[in-house]
């Protein structure tokens, strides 16, 4: 029956309407070959769903059985006939087409049309009793005329139809010489397709008509069969919905059958076939839920119908086939665009298929084991033919065509099934089936976001490999799975997997794997009793002594495995390493934390390292050695324990190991890292348990996910797996003497004193002074053009001595500046046992406040020291610089240097007035320069700059060096120049006496290029009487003068006001250009003309008048 389990090809293929072509002599006639090719050529997809078969003219079709007049006495012998489907797919066409070469105007028309009629008749006879439709296609060379015009053609066609007894619609003409042959065949095809549909429709009607003659008691099988056939006809005519309906009915009829032990196999097989059609069409009609529901009820109905107890394996095989078939249908539907979800996808069905396959194997092995050897020996090898030769699907070869109701021959039945069982056990590769189904399921679950379900399936696959003694595959699968379950702490599955691994390793003779699994099984987390763990522990210790472990309890003595182990042991030399286990990725029985005691160690200090170990194995253990590997292997000798007394552990014992060593000079400034901690076990053979990692987290052995260590002893031990080796701590002191604050721009002396507090002499001392700010400079000489840093050296400094340097800093900006002093030196020192040269470093930072030393303020004034807003052209004026000492120290000024614009002529004044002056804090000094502006228009000019050279006055007594003066430069303000339109010069005595006349001359000069006309008014006042022009109109030509002369007679003494002079532009002036603004005139007057004069009283004898006046 196993061959019936697989679905027959005719069931699985998509049924296509069959069209038979006859009358084409393909071998001899080129035109016929062309026509045949045009039907069968490519791109079938876009053409009507037809299958063409070429029949010879003399082909004999399967003979139809005569129609039964009555079903009354007919009892069917089976449900579905094996040949029926393929017969209709490949042998009995829905339409048979006869091709015949005949022109309408053929000279031998009479003879040919008779022959044609004869051929049609013959074929019709051959297909008697079938619903096949006949067609006639005339192959003509001449191009067709429109039918209405070709009267001959119309007549002859009608005649031909009549003689052939064909409806006019079944007669076609194919112009085979045409270029458009493909087009004609396409049209023919659609005509054939229509005919096929009606042909199959008729056939299905014919079957339906039998229904009335059937009765339920005897013809249950026929109900099923007829509905199936109708469904199949509908499928042939591509009516999917109707096909689905009839298949469903067929299936429903099947469930109504009386199922006995005798027919249960047949019913199951057929139900699978019909079910297949129903599910497939459901998916095709986009009814996936219906398909799944139908399949589920199908499974529910048949799940427990085993039949003969011996054929349990067959039942599971059938179930597995059902699940896998449905899974594949589902998968196909998904490929065509059906969306699947995580909880409903083919994987579940494949999984069940695998499950049933496992059951099948189990049942098969059990039942086979239960057979008596004699029964097997006596069995003639399959005393019957293959089931595929039987008339009906799913029947027993030893009981063909027997009615299910007949009492069965129990002996033959049992023998038959036994024979099948033997064949199944010995010839069928059940493992491949299980693994295949599991692989399908794994792929599906992987696609549907179910990684853990996938893991579970892989576990089952590994178990199956183990059962089928394919240990290599099993172990390969196992390795990643262990990690999957371990990382989420699923200890019970992990234990079972380890157990499986142990078993595989034992049976395939692999000491390394066996040892690894055993180590993990002995750990605290596995779900095993202490006794079992103790047993495993003994085995693993035994391996190191070349003792073959005992077989797992559930498998008996296995000489092959024992031999493998013996061979393995023989291949190991004494002391060979069998395996190295990385313990921090598994849950092993030693848990390790290794840490440095500090984040940093100085070079001369002793580096301390601690290793904490918890042993959680079931029995006492004695390790051979313990090594701690650092990233520099030179320390290895310091970091190992070789005394195995110290390496003896009781279960759950915690031990701490401390290691000390001195860092090597080349490691100074680098990081030391713990790379691994390794335990060595055994003497005869050796195994290493290694805890390794590159970061502290990884290295804490327990990978945070493993909570194991938290409970015992190691909790709260913080792991530092790296430490930094710092340069030796320096023991020197640097003292900086200086007078803060520094002044901006000055050459600021720093007196450095380095004191050696070491016990030894230090050599190669270098001092590097660096300023942090970009505006700072340092120099080792009293100069002001230093660099950012300067280096000072001293060969040797004896212990307890000092050495001194001077450094000069210059800060260009006020504010805080940092200066860093870095002292590097070497020292020979005995650290630990050996003397060694160490480099040491001492760093000191000085924060230096810098202030502004002086402030300079410039002002331009008239020669009379009146402030000027503009510099007049052609006149003398003065620049006054006020220098203020802002610093807290007295400043000595060397000189102030004026630098004027080229337009300004400086009248040199010999030495700078400031030279040698000392300004105390807050004091001010003025420097004056006389200058004149030679020419110029009204515009802005840069007047120039002023540079002051200064230094601290109290720095004279510095030690052996001379501080240079610093220069501070200031810009003079920008000024406007002013070309004066009128120049007035007043000649007046320095003072007058009361009642003594004095002369005043007012000279008005016109410096400009144009003629000037002015009204001059001289008003009188109380203090003076005067003689001269009181009001006059004057004209001055360019470069000319006008002199006004007055005789003043003072009346009052004291600082009295002179008679005010007033200039006005005449109102009558015609030329407006010449006219000057009144305000300008007023300003000129106020600038040049003195307003007051001292008038002294008369001498004593002349005092009478004074007295008189006062009276």
């Amino acid at each position, binding site marked *: 029956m196993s061959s019936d389990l697989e679905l027959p090809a005719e069931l699985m293929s998509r049924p296509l309407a069959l069209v038979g072509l006859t009358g084409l002599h393909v071998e001899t006639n080129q035109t016929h070959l062309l026509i045949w090719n045009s039907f069968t050529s490519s791109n079938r997809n876009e053409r009507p769903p037809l299958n063409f078969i070429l029949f010879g003219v003399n082909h004999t079709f399967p003979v139809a059985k005569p129609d039964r007049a009555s079903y009354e006495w007919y009892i069917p012998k089976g449900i579905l006939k094996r040949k029926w489907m393929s017969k209709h797919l490949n042998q009995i066409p829905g339409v048979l087409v006869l091709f015949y070469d005949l022109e309408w105007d053929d000279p031998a028309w009479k003879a040919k049309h008779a022959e044609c009629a004869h051929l049609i008749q013959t074929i019709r006879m051959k297909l008697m009793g079938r619903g096949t439709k006949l067609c006639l296609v005339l192959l003509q060379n001449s191009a067709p005329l429109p039918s209405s015009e070709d009267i001959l053609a119309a007549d002859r066609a009608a005649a031909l139809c009549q003689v052939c007894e064909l409806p006019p619609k079944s007669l076609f003409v194919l112009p085979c010489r045409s270029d458009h042959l493909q087009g004609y065949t396409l049209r023919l095809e659609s005509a054939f397709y229509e005919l096929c549909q009606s042909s199959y429709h008729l056939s299905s009607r014919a079957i339906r008509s039998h229904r009335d003659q059937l009765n339920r008691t005897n013809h249950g099988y026929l109900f099923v069969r007829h509905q199936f056939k109708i469904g199949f006809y509908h499928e042939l005519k591509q009516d999917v919905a109707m096909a689905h309906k009839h298949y469903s009915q067929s299936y429903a009829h099947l469930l109504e059958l009386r199922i006995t032990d005798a027919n249960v196999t047949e019913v199951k097989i057929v139900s699978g076939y019909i079910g297949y059609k129903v599910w497939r069409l459901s998916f095709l009609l986009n009814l996936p839920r219906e398909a799944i529901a139908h399949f589920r009820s199908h499974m529910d109905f048949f799940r427990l119908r085993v039949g003969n107890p011996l054929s349990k394996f067959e039942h599971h095989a059938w179930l597995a086939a059902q699940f896998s078939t449905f899974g594949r249908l589902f998968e196909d539907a998904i490929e065509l665009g059906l969306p699947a979800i995580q909880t409903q996808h083919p994987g579940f069905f494949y999984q069940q298929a695998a499950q049933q396959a496992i059951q099948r194997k189990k049942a098969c092995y059990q039942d086979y084991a239960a057979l008596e050897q004699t029964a097997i020996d006596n069995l003639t090898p399959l005393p019957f033919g293959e089931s595929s030769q039987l008339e009906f699907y799913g029947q027993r070869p030893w009981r063909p065509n027997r009615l299910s109701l007949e009492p069965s021959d129990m002996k033959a039945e049992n023998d038959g099934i036994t024979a099948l069982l033997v064949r199944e056990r010995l010839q069928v590769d059940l493992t491949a089936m299980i693994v295949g189904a599991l692989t399908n399921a794994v792929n599906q679950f992987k696609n549907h*976001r*179910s990684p853990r379900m996938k893991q579970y399936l892989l576990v089952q696959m590994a178990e199956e490999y183990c059962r089928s003694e394919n240990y290599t595959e099993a172990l390969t699968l196992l390795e990643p799975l262990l990690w999957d379950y371990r990382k989420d702490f699923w200890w019970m599955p992990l234990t079972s997997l380890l157990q499986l691994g142990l078993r595989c390793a034992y049976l395939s003779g692999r000491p390394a794997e066996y040892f690894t699994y055993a180590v993990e099984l002995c750990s605290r987390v596995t779900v095993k009793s202490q006794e079992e763990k103790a047993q495993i522990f003994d085995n693993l210790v035994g391996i190191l002594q070349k003792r073959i472990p005992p077989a797992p309890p559930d498998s008996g003595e296995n000489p092959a495995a024992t031999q493998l182990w013996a061979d393995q042991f023989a291949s190991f030399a004494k002391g060979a390493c069998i395996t190295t286990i990385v313990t921090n990725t598994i849950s092993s029985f030693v848990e390790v934390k290794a840490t440095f005691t500090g984040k940093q160690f100085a070079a001369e200090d002793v580096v301390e390292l601690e290793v904490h170990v918890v042993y959680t194995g079931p029995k006492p253990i004695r390790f051979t050695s313990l090594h701690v590997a650092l990233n520099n292997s030179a320390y290895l000798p310091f970091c190992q324990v070789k005394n195995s007394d110290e390496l003896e552990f009781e279960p759950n014992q915690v031990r701490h190991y401390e290691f000390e060593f001195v860092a090597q000079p080349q490691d100074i400034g680098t990081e030391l890292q713990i790379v691994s901690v390794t335990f060595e076990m055994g003497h005869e053979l050796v195994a290493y348990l290694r805890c390794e990692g590159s970061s502290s987290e990884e290295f804490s052995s327990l990978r945070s996910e493993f909570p194991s260590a938290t409970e015992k002893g190691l909790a709260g031990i913080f792991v530092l797996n790296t430490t930094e080796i710092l340069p030796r701590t320096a023991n020197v002191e640097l003292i900086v003497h200086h007078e803060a604050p520094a002044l901006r721009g000055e050459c600021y002396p720093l007196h450095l004193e380095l004191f050696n507090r070491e016990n030894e002499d230090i050599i190669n001392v270098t001092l590097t002074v660096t300023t942090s700010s970009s505006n700072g400079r340092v120099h080792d000489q009293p100069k002001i053009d230093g660099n950012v840093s300067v280096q000072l050296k001293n060969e040797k400094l004896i212990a307890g001595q000092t050495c001194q340097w001077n450094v000069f800093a210059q800060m260009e900006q006020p504010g805080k500046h940092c200066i860093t002093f870095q002292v590097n030196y070497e020292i020979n020192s005995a650290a630990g046992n050996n003397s060694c040269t160490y480099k040491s470093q001492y760093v000191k930072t000085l924060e230096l406040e810098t202030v502004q030393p002086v402030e300079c303020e410039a002002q331009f004034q008239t020669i009379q020291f009146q402030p000027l807003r503009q510099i007049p052209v052609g006149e003398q004026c003065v620049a006054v610089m006020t220098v203020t000492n802002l610093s807290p120290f007295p400043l000595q000024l060397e000189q102030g240097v004026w630098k004027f614009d080229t337009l300004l002529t400086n009248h040199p004044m010999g030495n700078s007035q400031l030279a040698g002056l000392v300004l105390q804090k807050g004091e001010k000094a003025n420097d004056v320069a006389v200058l004149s502006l030679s020419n110029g228009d009204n515009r802005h000019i840069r007047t120039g700059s002023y540079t002051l050279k200064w230094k601290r006055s109290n720095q004279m007594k510095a030690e052996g060096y001379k501080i240079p003066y610093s220069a501070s430069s200031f810009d003079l303000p920008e000024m406007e120049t002013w070309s004066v339109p009128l120049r007035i010069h007043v000649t007046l005595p320095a003072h007058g006496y009361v009642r003594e006349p004095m002369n005043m001359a007012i000279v008005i000069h016109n410096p400009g290029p144009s003629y000037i006309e002015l009204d001059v008014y001289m008003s009188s006042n109380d203090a003076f009487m005067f003689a001269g022009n009181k009001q006059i109109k004057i004209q001055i030509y360019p470069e000319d003068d006008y002199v006004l002369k007055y005789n003043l007679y003072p009346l009052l003494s004291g600082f009295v006001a002179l008679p005010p002079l007033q200039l006005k532009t005449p109102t009558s002036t015609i030329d407006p250009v010449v006219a000057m603004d009144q305000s300008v005139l007023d300003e000129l007057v106020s600038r040049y003309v003195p307003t007051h004069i001292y008038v002294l009283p008369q001498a004593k004898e002349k005092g009478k008048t004074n007295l008189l006046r006062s009276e």
Partner: protein
Amino acid sequence: MAVCIGFIGKENSPLFLRCINQSQELQFHYIMHTCIDFVEEKIIQSNKSGSDVRELYLGLLYSSEEVKAYGFVTNTKIKIVIIIDSTNSLLRDNEIRAIFRKLHNAYTELVCNPFYTPGDPITSKSFGALVDELLASSS
């Protein structure tokens, strides 16, 4: 009938598992482990829907030929799974909800115990007895 009840921690480690038939415990461990797939998917789905208040009861996780698994996730991401024999159609949805509610209460009480560290495997006897009772009453 409920055949197995399991508690899974927020990092997907098993906290507690109790089943009626002790001999199947290993198999239920495997099945419980596979349930995490479906629970995680459901949580992602409910997060996508964006509602603030998440329904703790996740409903049917998946059903196979043998078993049906129902899930529940507390706000602290503790997953509770009830596994039911597929042949049992008597247990209704709201009854399962009721069992989950009782289990949730039992867990809450357990966490209130200062001697229990959340995240550790549950060893409390009274908690075990309560789960046993629920298993027995629902079968």
